């Protein structure tokens, strides 16, 4: 997991872009319009999102449409699941410790 994905998601505008393209593929112009941003600003965000593979370009005639890459988002969620697993492991250890201490106190 590249850290870029965290950088990408840490930005509220990029999160909003992701939310939009998850619903339907968009051209950079359409994004700029929706967010009331310059094409230049949009291009920067697109670059970051594309670099971490969260969106994929698709050429259609002279336009480029950006699609949401759900598979990549899934990987990110899997990563979070691992994070959760760590906590489960620690808490199981704590369960064992608590029951040991309780036994000792009897």
């Amino acid at each position, binding site marked *: 997991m590249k*850290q870029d994905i965290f*950088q990408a998601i*840490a930005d509220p505008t990029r999160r909003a872009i992701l939310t939009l393209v998850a619903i339907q593929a968009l051209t950079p112009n359409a994004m700029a319009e929706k967010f009331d941003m310059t094409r230049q600003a949009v291009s920067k965000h697109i670059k970051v999102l594309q670099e971490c593979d969260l969106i994929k370009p698709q050429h259609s005639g002279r336009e480029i449409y950006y699609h949401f890459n759900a598979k990549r988002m899934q990987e990110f969620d899997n990563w979070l699941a691992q*994070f959760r697993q760590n906590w489960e492991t620690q808490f199981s250890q*704590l*369960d064992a410790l*608590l029951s040991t201490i309780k036994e000792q106190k009897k």
Partner: protein
Amino acid sequence: MNNHLLFDFNVDKAAKTVYITREFNAGLDLVWDAFTQADLLDQWGAPAPMQAKTKYMDFKVGGRRFYAMISPDGQERWAVQEFTSITPKTNFKMYNAFSDEHENRELPGSEWDYNFSEENGRTTVNIIIFNESFERLERLLEGFKIGFTMTLANLENLLSTLSEKQ
């Protein structure tokens, strides 16, 4: 193990916040101690096969816990927790940051807020972790990845060793 105990884990990516709720089959006094005393923390505070080792812990407002997570190959990852607020047996807050072995902190860190409550002999702990950057969240996991190479059987061994210490 204790599948009947409540465990909630949520990440609000937008807010860079992790929410954890866990129920423990023990009274408040004991659970509070397990979260606030170094000798107990070191027995569970790192996911096996990582081990936690506290160099010192001064559990008071403004005090610090300086500790390491040690991987099976002996690699040490140091961190500093600074206690910012303590309401005995109810709540404590701390600021956690990675550091080197000389206690030089690498900022930004994360803010931790722990809440404890007891009902019918069971204690519920709520943990809210606010990370200033997602990168940190990832680094947290980085050190634990080693743990996933471990089989469940090994984990069971560790737990039964703990139980035998009775």
